[in-house]
């Protein structure tokens, strides 16, 4: 089981990752990151 579990987990997360790309999450991450995060700087 301990040998199979990491591979199963990898497959599960790979499918999440691909779904994220399919749903346009990459664009959302890019849009969020290209706006200057004021919280990170300490403006709020």
């Amino acid at each position, binding site marked *: 089981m301990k040998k199979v579990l*990491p591979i199963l987990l990898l497959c599960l997360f790979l499918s999440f990752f691909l779904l994220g790309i399919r749903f346009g*999450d990459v664009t959302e*991450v890019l849009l969020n990151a290209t706006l200057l995060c004021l*919280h990170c700087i300490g403006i709020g």
Partner: protein
Amino acid sequence: MRRLVQALGVILPNAYYKAFTGVIFYQGSLKAFCAPVLNCYACPLAVSSCPIGSLQHFLVIRSFPFYLVGFLGIVGASVGTLTCGWLCPFGALQEMMYKVRSFKVKIPRPLRYLRYASLVLLVGLLPLITGEHWFSQLCPQGGLEAGVPLALFSSQIRALLGNLFILKLSILGGFLFLFIISKRPFCLTFCPLGAIFSLFNRFSLLHLRVRDGVCDECELCVDPCPAGIVPYREVDSKDCVRCWECVRRCPRGAIQPQMLKFWNFERSGSREPARPTIPLESKGDQAEGTQ
């Protein structure tokens, strides 16, 4: 070797050197990708996104972060906390500052669960409920990489700073002091990214193993461990940052990285054999013989 990789971990996600020429902020397509380390994307030099900042953003807009869960899961299930020990710029800073001579304290074990509270509350629940980036507002790495440089070099930003910036600076100052007196205090008590990766340490493809009968518990690996654990007893512990200092320091090669239980990275070169253990009976015999 690890110091070199840590230096790359500082340089590569912060490679926007045009920031020095007055173009204040990178807005290119590389920011669609997250670095698997805590590196602030509001840093003027940053070319990649912060996974924790992005995660909070998805929760604020109430969208399930498939891409980020997938990305963090792939990294975690592959290597566990290896990126904490080898790549994270904030981890490298903590290790460097710990070398400053001062009194040293050990972080109590129960406090190490605080990072899970930080993950659940500051990154998960509070952004989801209130629509605010709670962890980003408190993150000392953001203060160090983004807040301080932008406050110093941009008069527009400086004009906007208020109480939150003072709070952020206080948290940063507190942690900088803690970096000097204890081993990786931010990683062990506050870092939500480390908390996520640590959950995979027992199940990841890459892990460490203690070779049967080789370790003689000489404890040479205990002092150099930046996570303050006993490596030969807690080899795949969630507190381990997988720096592999124990692997490097062990004179017998008793602790070895291993991929999926059947692919070992045995180090070449001669090894001292393990000290022969004396059975209890013969110890008694020896004691009698000396009297």
